[in-house]
């Protein structure tokens, strides 16, 4: 019963929180650029407008992919917030990402093709670190279940500072922030136009947008995990990390995929793997 209520609450509340966070992002970015910027509710207006827009579908499978992307993103979030298995969330979020990529490939436009290719590279780049995080959490708490991880007596960050740093790095990739916004962007300054989303419009674009809200909340949730036993600190930290991501977004040029790939594996190795290794030595 509790699980059901949590799931429903998550499904209903997340778009509100996610949309607001996106609005905060827009406003703060604008202020950093010495502009006034849009209203904080702008992301909601955008999505609602997209629903009113005529739908141009390039092919049928496209919508199926978008729907699957949204479904698995929500599923990931639900799994996470009801305290399920962390490996399973990693797996299902990857699955969601794959549907998104397939959606991009399915449109046969060169821009979305290249965008999908780059998204794939981003995924390959951030995956090792994400898995290291799951392993690290297991090594500290002896459980893959998120509810056990939360119930652990101490903030996990004490044991996993390196993993945390490495995870922050890939968070920038996952949130598609500059310098790692290679695969898509809705502001017009990309050599591949809107990347994966180039061929999506109207309702399907709105669904993608909403899926990203869910994704962001899930990602901030994982940041929270590192501080779980101290909920206030945890929420504070996730919000601060979000602001840091906006800051990074505004202070960097977009890098090329080779650099993205190399740097993320490098960080995963240096910060993440070393941290895990130290843990391993201590425990044995």
């Amino acid at each position, binding site marked *: 019963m509790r699980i059901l209520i949590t799931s429903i609450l998550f499904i209903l509340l997340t778009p509100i929180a996610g949309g607001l966070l996106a609005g905060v992002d827009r406003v703060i970015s604008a202020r950093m*650029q010495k*502009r006034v910027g849009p209203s904080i509710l702008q992301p909601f207006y955008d999505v609602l407008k997209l629903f009113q827009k005529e739908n141009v579908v390039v092919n049928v499978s496209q919508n199926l992919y978008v729907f699957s992307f949204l479904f698995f993103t929500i599923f990931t979030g639900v799994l996470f917030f009801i305290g399920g298995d962390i490996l399973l969330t990693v797996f299902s979020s990857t699955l969601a990402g794959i549907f998104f990529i397939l959606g991009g490939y399915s449109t046969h436009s060169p821009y979305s093709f290249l965008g999908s290719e780059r998204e794939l590279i981003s995924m390959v780049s951030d995956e090792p670190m994400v898995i290291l995080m799951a392993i690290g959490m297991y090594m500290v708490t002896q459980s893959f279940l998120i509810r056990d991880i939360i119930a652990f007596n101490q903030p996990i960050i004490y044991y996993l500072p390196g993993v945390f740093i490495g995870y922050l790095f890939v968070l920038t990739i996952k949130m598609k922030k500059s310098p790692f916004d290679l695969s898509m962007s809705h*502001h*017009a*300054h990309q*050599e591949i136009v809107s990347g994966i989303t180039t061929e999506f419009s109207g309702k399907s674009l709105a669904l993608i947008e909403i899926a990203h809200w869910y994704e962001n909340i899930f990602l901030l949730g994982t940041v929270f995990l590192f501080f779980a036993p101290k909920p206030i600190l945890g929420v504070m930290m996730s919000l601060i990390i979000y602001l840091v991501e906006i800051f990074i977004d505004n*202070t*960097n*040029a977009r890098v*090329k995929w080779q650099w993205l790939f190399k740097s993320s594996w490098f960080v995963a190795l240096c910060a993440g793997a070393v941290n895990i290794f130290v843990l391993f030595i201590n425990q044995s």
Partner: protein
Amino acid sequence: MSERMIIPFGPQHPVLPEPIHLSLVLENEKVVDVLPSIGFVHRGLEKLVEKKDFLEYTFVAERICGICSYMHGMGYCQAIENIMNIEIPGRASFLRVIGAEFSRIHSHLLWLGLCADAFGFESLFMHTWKLREQILDLMEEMTGGRVIFSSVKIGGVKKDVDDSLLSKINDVLLELEPQVKEISSVFLESITVRHRLEGVGVLTQDEAVSLGAVGPMLRASGINQDMRKLGYAAYAELDFEPIIDTEGDSMARCRVRIKEIFQSMDLIRQAVAKLPQGPIAAPFKGNPDGEYFSRLEQPRGEVIYYVKGNGTKFLDRMRVRTPTFANLPALIKVLKGCDLADVPILILTIDPCISCTER
């Protein structure tokens, strides 16, 4: 995975403010071949001399391009003045220098912004263009226009600048200089920016010459060539040295342009200090008869106006060879073999001005 893919780049493309079309042949994300096609902005302005008399054509010349509008008007008028032996008053020639150098600053700031945009650095784009607005405001106060100035006319300039405006020019420059310094250090020092610019699109000295490159493109490859040294307008009475760099990559071109902003500020200060009193335009009669090649240094490099008159109101020929046109061969050269992600930067690095290229 070495299948080839052709991706169309432009004419409508978010990172290109202007329509140029390139078919890029890609192998993975490497560009192996480039097939340019232009003509999207071709208006046939050169042929309009048959329909507009040589006085009216000044307005057309200014609208060859909205970025170098000032210098287009100036180059055309200089050609006519030389044919008709009109001696423009000293004050006018200094005012022309001030206008032209302000155009250069605004154009280079515009370029820096677009370049930042091309490598996905939105906040830098915004901050650079914010600085540019102050220059435009000043230009508007001086000439009446933000981009099309309608300020130069045959024989001189249309609007004089009073003392209070002159001191305002100095004040604004004083205020702007540290801000431009701050912005430019981001371009020169930020790690991610350097990652995107350094070593990208290298043009050697020999290539630059044989491909006929001009302007910052040529100077960044180590060649000392700046048409202002010809001493047109009042440049002969001002003290400056062309800015040269040796690396020949995108970073070098960026550096040259940044240094030229400060050089232009300095030139404006010199011109303001030396501005003589007197009339701002010389009267003239008759129609042009003869020919002249008028050469100017625009923000993008050397431009040539060839004007041939026949003693009537209508000119025989008015040809303009713009810097971007001369830089196209070099652009095609640097594009071959680059990464797709570098394409926008490489296109921008010649500071393309398609509208004047195609006229």
